[in-house]
C-alpha cells in the first residue's frame, strides 16, 4: 500500500509538459560546467524559476557572445535594474533582487517622458540597442528571441553591434 501511495505521489508531482520542454533543450555541453556560463541562448527561466529575467546577448554575427554589455530594464511602474553580460553573453536577474511588474516595454509615462523597457549598451557607450516592443510575462529572452536570424515568429537573437558608429 505504501508503495502505491509513493508511486501515486510521484505521478502527481510530474509535469510532462515542463519535462518535455526541458528535454527539448538537450544535454549540457560537456565542456561547460553547470553555472552562469552554461546554455547560452536557451530560455533560462525554464529551469531557473528563481530568475525574473535572463538571456544572452550576441555580437552582430549572432553567434559570438557579447561580454560586458550592460542591460537596463524598466518595468511597467518605473522600477529599474541593470545587469552585465558575462563571457558567455549571459545575464540574469534573480527575483530576490528585482521582481518586475509586467509588461516591460516602451511607453510614455505620466510625466510625458519616454520610457524604454530594455536598453542594451555595448562596451562602446555609443553602441545602444533598445527594445521597443514589450515583454508580456516571460522573463526568458530566448522564449521569443530564438533561431539563427529573424523570422515571422521571432526577431532572432538579441545582439549589439561591435562597430563604432
Amino acid at each position, binding site marked *: 500500500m505504501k508503495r502505491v501511495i509513493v508511486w501515486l505521489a510521484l505521478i502527481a508531482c510530474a509535469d510532462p509538459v515542463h519535462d518535455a520542454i526541458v528535454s527539448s533543450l538537450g544535454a549540457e555541453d560537456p565542456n561547460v560546467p553547470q553555472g552562469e556560463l552554461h546554455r547560452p541562448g536557451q530560455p533560462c527561466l525554464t529551469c531557473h524559476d528563481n530568475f525574473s529575467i535572463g538571456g544572452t546577448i550576441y555580437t552582430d554575427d549572432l553567434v559570438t557572445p557579447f561580454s560586458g554589455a550592460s542591460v537596463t530594464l524598466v518595468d511597467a511602474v518605473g522600477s529599474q535594474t541593470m545587469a552585465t553580460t558575462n563571457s558567455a553573453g549571459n545575464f540574469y536577474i534573480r527575483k530576490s533582487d528585482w521582481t518586475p511588474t509586467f509588461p516591460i516595454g516602451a511607453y510614455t*509615462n505620466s510625466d510625458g517622458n519616454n520610457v524604454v523597457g530594455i536598453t542594451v549598451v555595448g562596451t562602446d557607450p555609443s553602441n545602444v540597442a533598445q527594445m521597443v*516592443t514589450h515583454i*508580456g*510575462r*516571460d522573463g526568458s529572452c530566448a522564449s521569443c528571441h530564438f533561431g539563427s536570424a529573424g523570422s515571422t*515568429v521571432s526577431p532572432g537573437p538579441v545582439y549589439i553591434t561591435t562597430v563604432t558608429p
Partner: protein
Amino acid sequence: MKRFIGGALAVAITAIACQLAPANERTGIDAPNLVEFETFGVGDYLDHRCGSLDCHGQSTRNLTMWGCFGLRLDPDETGLAPGCRASGGVNTQTNEYEASYRSLVGLEPAVMSAVVAGGGAHPELLTFIRKARGWDAHKGGALVTPGDDQDTCMTSWLAGATDSAACQRATTETP
C-alpha cells in the same frame, strides 16, 4: 425487432437532421467594424498590448494577434519579422489586421453578435473583455480598468463608435 426499430429511428433522425441543416447554409454574424479596427487604432492597440510573442503573438493561442509588435503574417515569405517601423521593421500590414480581426471576432461569434446587436451595452459578455479586466482567469493578469483608455478603445469599437484618441493613448502610454 428492437434492432430494427433502432436502425429505422437512426435513419429517420439522420434524414431529418440533413433536411434541417442544408450543407450550403451560412450563418451571418453581427461583427464590429473591420475598417475601424485597422484605421482607428483598435488593431494597433490590441497588437501592442496583447500581441507580444510571449502572449497572444503565438499562432497556437485561441486568440492570436498578428502585427509588427509580435507575430508576423507573411504568406509570401517576404522576410517580414517582428518589429515596427520605429525599430527598423515594417508596420502592421492589412492582411495582418484582417487576420487578427477574424481571430477576435470568430472567438465567440454568437456572443459577439449579441454584444454588437445590443450596441455594445454589455461588452463584458465577451471573454476577451473579462480576461483583459481580470474578471476571468488570465495569465497576463488584469490589464485594463473599466473606463480607462485601453478599455474604452475596445468597448467603443464594440459599440460602433470607436474612440480613436483613446486607442492612440492606450498604445503609446502603456508599455
